[in-house]
């Protein structure tokens, strides 16, 4: 069964999500990856405001290909999330509620999700053409000089993700692998 949720995310919605749930997201989400995260966190360290208000929002770790004429966006699948782990707490502290990416997170991030009541969603990496179809609008709103790494505001409809880490310590990757592992390393 799939759960349909919309952004911004509320605590009630987050409390209802469990690792392994299939979720369809509708609403505005923001893109940011390595360079944008570095710049945002450096701005915060200097006491400057962020170019976006992250309260209640979801950040999608993606650097899309350029759109062809007539397209909203090019191919747009998730990038590996763990590279952003260093920057996560600064954004959670400001009220960020969700992240979309691929791959596992560090133990520290999993603890932070509990502490700040936020959720980490995994999208299927590499299926970038399919995922681009769920993106209905795209607008660069900050750090345009970063090109593909600029911050974009996307409107997504039924964007398919799976809850990877919830606020209860659930972890789809650990649980999934344990179910099928025939050797321990």
């Amino acid at each position, binding site marked *: 069964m799939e759960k349909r949720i919309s952004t911004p995310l509320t605590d009630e919605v987050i409390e209802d999500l469990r690792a392994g749930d299939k979720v369809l997201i509708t609403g505005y989400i923001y893109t940011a990856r390595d*360079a944008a995260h570095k710049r945002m966190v450096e701005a915060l360290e200097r006491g400057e405001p962020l170019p976006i208000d992250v309260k209640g929002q979801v950040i999608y770790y*993606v*650097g*899309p*290909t*350029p*759109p*062809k004429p007539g397209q909203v966006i*090019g*191919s*747009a*699948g998730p*990038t*590996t999330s*763990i590279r952003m782990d260093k920057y996560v707490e600064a954004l959670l502290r400001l009220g960020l509620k969700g992240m979309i990416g*691929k*791959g*596992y997170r560090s133990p520290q991030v999993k603890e932070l999700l509990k502490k700040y009541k936020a959720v980490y969603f*995994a999208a*299927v*990496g*590499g*299926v*970038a*053409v*399919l995922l*681009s179809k769920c993106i209905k609008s795209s607008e660069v709103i900050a750090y345009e000089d*970063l*090109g*593909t*790494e600029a911050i974009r505001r996307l409107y997504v409809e039924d964007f398919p993700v*799976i809850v990877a880490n919830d606020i209860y310590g659930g972890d*789809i*990757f650990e*649980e*999934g*692998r*344990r*179910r*099928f*592992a*025939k*050797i321990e*390393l």
Partner: protein
Amino acid sequence: MREVLYEDIVEAVKRIAIKANYELPEDVELAYQTALRREESELGREVLQQILLNIRAAREEQMAYCQDTGVAVVFVELGQEVHVVGGSLEDAINEGVRRAYKEGFLRASMVYDPVFERKNTGDNTPAVIHYKVVPGDRLKITFAPKGAGSENTSRLAMLKPADGWEGVKRFVLETVKLAGPNACPPFTVGVGIGGTFEYCALLAKKALLRPVGERSKDPVARRIEEELIEEVNKIGWGPMGFGGTVTAVDVKVELYPCHIASLPVAVNIQCHASRHAEIEL
């Protein structure tokens, strides 16, 4: 000597760079169809179905299969009777990459310097080019864009001869386990054993170009491949790491002689966007 024109090389590289990014090879697609029948996890099968749909959508709509259109890795086999005229071979390859990434709407993903400024070069150049001079008068170019998600999880070890097969096996399995969901399984795993520090890494990458499902002609490499395929799929990651029985669709092993004191091993992880296209001029 046979003359090959600079401009022809540029256009050839452009063509195969775009093709590699839009169209996964048939052997790769077939491997995922086979995986779909073998995968025991329901969620894993759903992921494989999406992968197959994405292959078709990318091919039909002529779009990049993955948004990470990679580092432009190029393998050149240059016949020693070939004379390149009108410019340098290296410039021609980079110009081909430049045009492909612009005209093919591919993502520019290269930054310089790598440590401090990390400014995007804007056109995905420079390519990483491996040359081999071979007999004959042909010029063969293979374009194999490599995404960072899987490249970042690749590893190399200088083992001791006493570590032997058990050491090699443990290192390969550990690498696949660490790579896991972050590197977009199902993988093709390239393994280079022997040579030197840099040469075993090159062997591992070259191994990825061989057709999926084809076994090595070297009986030792073949035995290693067969055992590793079996073992890797016991780890349990499955498609996208959500748990399952197909973590890798293939393991490719290349061997080379090495020093009496060495046992170098390199593991190059290839995500499911296993892309390459080639052309002969």
